[in-house]
């Protein structure tokens, strides 16, 4: 008597071949793993911003509103390396102008976000930092439970590469949940 499980396994292999593995692989991108199913306890959130992330969509505020007791840290990053490059090639005056322009942009973005966050009743703090965009975020990410970051943070993106390389690096290095917008 043929064992039913053996018969099914043999027939399944004959009919489906390697197609099942290919399909499962495609689905892996969508299905949450057991680890991802655990809803993390979020008490602090870091939101890095820069010249490439001038618009923050409503979805980000909706996500933040899901954690009313979390402490929010907004950090506007000014690229230290770009400043140095301008100083070395165009001179100190242009570097100063660039920095002032960046600081003005930081004030505008943080002011816009401040109003929206205040409406949500969430405690927040804000800062403007002069440094390396990925290294700085990686160095402080451990102090927070979650990161919310734009796909365009750190560099220009293209149609073919919708996530900036700086974001790729941050996502790879920080051991914290990251929400990309």
């Amino acid at each position, binding site marked *: 008597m*043929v064992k*039913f*499980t053996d*018969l*099914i*396994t*043999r*027939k*399944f*292999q*004959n*009919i*489906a071949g390697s*197609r*099942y593995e290919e*399909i*499962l692989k*495609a*689905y892996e*991108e*969508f*299905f*949450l793993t057991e680890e991802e*199913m655990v*809803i993390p306890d979020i008490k602090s959130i870091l939101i890095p911003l820069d010249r490439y992330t001038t618009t923050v969509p409503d979805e980000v505020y909706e996500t933040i509103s899901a954690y009313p007791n979390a402490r929010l840290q907004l950090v506007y990053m000014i690229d230290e390396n770009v400043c140095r490059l301008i100083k070395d090639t165009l001179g100190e005056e242009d570097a100063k102008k660039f920095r002032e322009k960046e600081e003005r942009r930081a004030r505008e973005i943080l002011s816009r976000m401040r109003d929206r966050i205040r409406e949500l009743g969430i405690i927040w703090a804000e800062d403007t930092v002069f440094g390396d965009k990925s290294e700085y975020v990686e160095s402080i990410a451990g102090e927070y439970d979650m990161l919310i970051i734009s796909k365009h943070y750190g560099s220009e993106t293209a149609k073919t590469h919708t996530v900036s390389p700086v974001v790729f690096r941050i996502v790879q290095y920080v051991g914290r949940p990251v929400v990309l917008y």
Partner: protein
Amino acid sequence: MISTGEIIALSVFSGVYALIMSEKIHRTVAAMVGASVIMVLNIVPWDKIPKYLDLGTILLLAGMMTVVNIAKDSGLFEYIAIKTAKLSKGDPMKVLLLFSVITALVSAFLDNVTTVLLLTPMLIYITRQMDVNPVPFLLAEVFASNIGGTATLIGDPPNIMIGSAAGLSFNDFILNMAPIAFLDLFVTVGIIYLAYRSAMNAHSNRSEVITLSIMSLNEEDAIKDRMLFRKSIVMIAAIIVAFFFHDKLGLQPAVIALTGASILLLWSGASPEYALEKVEWATLFFFGGLFIIVGSLVETGAIDQLADWMLGYVHTEGQAILLISWFSAFSSAIVDNIPFTATMIPLIKAMGNSMSTYPLWWALSLGACLGGNGTAIGASANVVVVGMAYREGIKITFGDFLKVGMVIMVATVGLGSALIWLRYVGL
């Protein structure tokens, strides 16, 4: 008196059938070896091979397989699966109904194995998130796939074979089989619900998990190539529309499928090597081998003798409808419905000398397609879903399947044969 040729043809036929049933060797190998014996011994002369090799069936299957292979890479099927999952909102009853309807609908136009291969992983994932017994949902999917396949000319290989051999159009199938399939689908869902209603209650404390795991899925993420996705939808829709008019256009269904495949290859720029490599050549050679083996039974006169013997007992169309539908159903529950249909087609053709065969084709389609629901090995879709369930640690035993499958088979074939009887014989 039985001739030597007849004895050889019957022996090869029985041997190949036994090998297919035992699954000791691949069914394609069995059919190819059998066909080789027939040709080497000249039971069917070489010049008559094209007569028995039903190119209408083989090319229609090849065309549709090519279309599916190209469309599959766009993420179309994953998109459908995610969309269905989200529409169900994690409600077990909605999951049962929506997945059954979508599976039946997709299976009516594309092949059943591909349909269940692509939808089952999503169904298993959802039932895990809902923390419910996945068995009724998987069984409903299998039954819906076989029922959906019954509805159209291109839904299931037996229908393709019947349509090609009997010259039936796509609309003939829509008019005769689609209403039966429609009613049978809801009867099936009802039976599954009654049999497993206790499993249809989701745990109320799972709502947060369901929201996170199902509602957060984004169907747009499934689209790997947006242009190909759009082109695939347009071409599949165009092919389906063309099927509705193929008889008016004077085109064989196989021509529609091959033309659709060619246009999609041209329009999408997909690699022909890749798209054609993924065509299930083993299945096509299996069909080819079978056609030659069954052709040997026709050539030697064995089929005519069997038909004469049957006509000694069956005198009216009504009797033939009942006999063919129920015999086909129980046979297809045990043996592969493709060789079974290949054998029955010349038999029904031979019966055409003494009665109208038109209603008999519907009886054969009904029995061959829905009979597959009877056992776990009755149809390829059953094997695929049960096999996938095993791999995911979900045990569906032969007995588990049989208990529900036989009830579904008897109910759906009973309802279908009653409708065919009422339509063609009357009270």
